[in-house]
């Protein structure tokens, strides 16, 4: 059943990516702007522009450009970025790990804090913990991540000087030996504690800011789910049987309350990626979000399309993971 589900979803993924590529390709070509001018420079002559257009295939008819693009993309060749002048696949390899590290840290933080906070909030309903949790939920959803990032940086770097302003690693610290390209993980794996500590310190503030919005959603979802199941008969039965409070909450109630939360957590990964666009700008984080913003500003067709496709693919894959997880969490679910 799982294999069928996976195969079916991967089959649909092809259509999703095809549709997305067609859409981004068409839209990016509709936007006024000449990438050749961006490459050759504003003061270049028509002859110089022609050379660039020829080199980058910009003179070909649009359908030819699209087919060439898709054919190359199947080999993970996304062409050359007109903004950075490097192969886009190289750029993705360079920038994606930074975003992955940031997103992963934010995901872990939001889940590790959000789930217990939601549980506590539900179990101790209408107490100060609940009020704090609800404040976090509402503020996390209401505050724009861009504003939150600037404020956090101003307070924790500018005023208190507890944490660095951003960057993955300062210039004075050499990056660790590349294993996963995630500096904190590589620092751990190579037992390079200086790098691990410095990278973690640099990661903390942007990850906290990025996590805040997701944390709010997760806390709210868990709280809502818990409140619903705590009134169910089976929970009352468990309590009547004399089970410990901890066991009732975590083994019986939370497990069932987590079902909708898992969906939400899966979707949060997509939202974390989009939130990273703004967080990366504020914290000078060299990730895919910043790369995408720069690609948009510079009409870098290949950069725009590749980042869109990669983010879409990650989003779809995360949904697939959530669907598979559902099968294990709830045996009643059947995707047939």
């Amino acid at each position, binding site marked *: 059943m799982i294999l069928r589900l996976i195969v079916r979803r991967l089959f649909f993924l092809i259509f999703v990516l095809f549709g997305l590529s067609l859409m981004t390709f068409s839209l990016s070509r509709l936007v006024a702007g000449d990438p050749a001018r961006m490459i050759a420079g504003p003061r270049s002559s028509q002859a110089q522009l022609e050379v660039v257009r020829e080199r980058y295939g910009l003179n070909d008819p649009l359908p030819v450009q699209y087919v060439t693009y898709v054919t190359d993309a199947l080999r993970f060749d996304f062409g050359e970025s007109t903004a*950075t002048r490097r192969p886009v696949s190289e750029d993705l390899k360079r920038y994606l790990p930074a975003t992955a590290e940031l997103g992963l840290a934010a995901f872990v933080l939001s889940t590790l804090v959000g789930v217990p906070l939601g549980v506590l909030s539900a179990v101790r309903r209408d107490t100060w913990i609940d009020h704090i949790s609800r404040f976090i939920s509402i503020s996390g959803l209401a505050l724009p991540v861009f504003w939150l990032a600037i404020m956090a940086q101003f307070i924790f770097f500018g005023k208190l000087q507890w944490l660095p302003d951003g960057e993955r690693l300062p*210039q004075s610290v050499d990056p660790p030996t590349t294993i996963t390209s995630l500096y904190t993980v590589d620092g751990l794996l190579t037992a390079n504690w200086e790098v691990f500590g410095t990278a973690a310190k640099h990661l903390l503030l942007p990850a906290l800011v990025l996590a805040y919005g997701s944390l709010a959603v997760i806390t709210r979802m868990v709280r809502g789910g818990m409140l619903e199941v705590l009134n169910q008969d089976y929970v009352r039965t468990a309590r009547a049987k004399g089970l410990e409070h901890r066991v009732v909450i975590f083994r019986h109630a939370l497990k069932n309350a987590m079902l909708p939360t898992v969906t939400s957590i899966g979707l949060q990964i997509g939202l974390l990626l989009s939130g990273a666009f703004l967080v990366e700008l504020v914290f000078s984080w060299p990730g895919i979000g*910043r790369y995408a913003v720069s690609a948009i500003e*510079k*009409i870098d067709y290949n950069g725009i399309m590749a980042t869109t496709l990669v983010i879409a693919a990650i989003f779809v894959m995360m949904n697939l993971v959530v669907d598979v997880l559902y099968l294990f969490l709830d045996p009643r679910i059947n995707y047939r």
Partner: protein
Amino acid sequence: MTNPRRASFFAAALSGRMDRRHVLAHGLKLGLATPVITALMANAPEAAAAPAPIGARRSSNQEGSGTLTVISGIDVAELDPHYSYSSRASLIFLGTYEMLIQYKGSATDQYDPMLALSWEGNPDGSSYTFSLAPNATFHDGSPCDAQAVKDSFTRYLLLGAAVADVLKRFVTDPEQMVVVDATTIRFDLGRPQPLFLAAMASEYGPFVVNPRVIEANKTEEDPYAHEWMKFNAEGAGTGPYILSENLPGERQVLTRFEGYHGGFTGAEFDEVVIRIVPENATRRLLIEQGEADALTFDLTPDDVAAMQDNSDLQILTYDTTRVNWIIMNVPRLVSKEVRLGFSLAYPYSETIDGAYKGLMKRSGPLPDTVRGYDPAVYLPQTDLVRAKELILSGGFAEGDTFEYIFTAGDEPERTAAQLFQANLAEMGFTLEIAEVEGGQQEELIYGDMPAEEQPHFIGSWAWWPDYNDPYNQFYPNFTEAAQDGGGSNAGDWVNPRFEEIMVEAATYTDEARLVELMKEAQNILTEQDPPCIYQGQPTYYTILRSDIQGYFNNPLYLSSYPFYKMSRAVS
């Protein structure tokens, strides 16, 4: 051979019989295995040769002034000095490469030695001879002699990038460059060229690049090794600093070239770090907190105003050769009277005081730092009554709507546009303002879209010449040849007398005649037949930590620093 455990795992998974304990156990194993798999993938050979970050990281020896940290809002995409046309890239080039000569201090008509220790022109200025530093070497240790200079300029010409126009105006054939001896090179220009030295000191293009490095990295398809030079600089320059690290999106690091022919006093910085910080608020925090030492023209005017009283900072303001203006769409604005009317409707003092917080001064199309500037140039004063008369005289009526675009994210320009909108509203007209990305704006300006389809006004535009020459300021913006992609004459403005002036200015030899011609040209561009609304010369600023010394600006090197002259004061 089939692994039974693996087979049972897949069988269980596929049949849906796997319980949570299995999922956790296998998930844990997968989690542990992932770094290993990734490591193997990361260490696998590259499928295709791809540009790598430059050089290995070097640690500072801390004998000099340590590290100078400069912050910049934008990254650099092109490291080939014979291709790049960007003042941001010149920030690196002026530290790592050398021209033959450079502008002296803050002067725009005097020169200092760089690779050439001395130079002289023949009496009519048709030939110039440069004597090179005999001990000059490239960063790879090879000598930088006259032949290397000739080979480098030959590449600069033949690579054919737009930036080569700086030299092509004077030298079109490599044979015009004559190697006299190992340390002497002569440029035979064929006719008097009073601006040749000015062009040779430009920050756009005339850098000397090591021909041996080009030779070593060229390919059949790329005979000038541009593909290599886009991302690399090892051994290529002769400047006092070596580009030792380039992490795209993060920073560039320059370290001292100990073999520099000019030598070091010991006080210079050992290392210069150019950190890329895209967000304005972060840049301000970094310089205020002392995490960065220097920043140039990269904050909002409000931020600069707010930092004036910070005793930890030096805020140096100065004029450059840049002028900001708003392009008017000539076909849609019907007549020169209408365009003059809009010039009179513009809120000049409000824009300078409100939008730019005083960091701008009125000017015409030519800044006061460029030869030929007319101190008595006509500067329209805001007069809404007269402006309305002139606009109505062109057939427009009250209630008419005009379109205005400017670059997204340009805060002062947003305020300025709103101030202009308010003035027009007071006169009974509507100004519709739209923001576009920089790339789109450039396409509107340089593309071949008919003027009738373009907005009435294109804001956020500015120009500065490549070197001290008014022709270089005017030709790409206001001539007929600069229309439809030939330059940035996006308003399709043509004035026959102005065309005649440009033809004469292109080949002038008499400075007094040039001044006369430019006086007339400036009057045409401002009073007789204005193609633009000139906001003024933005006042540039460099913010330095209080212990940084030796800095000076040059109006033609807009975003650069004299790294070699700078140091940190001993406390």
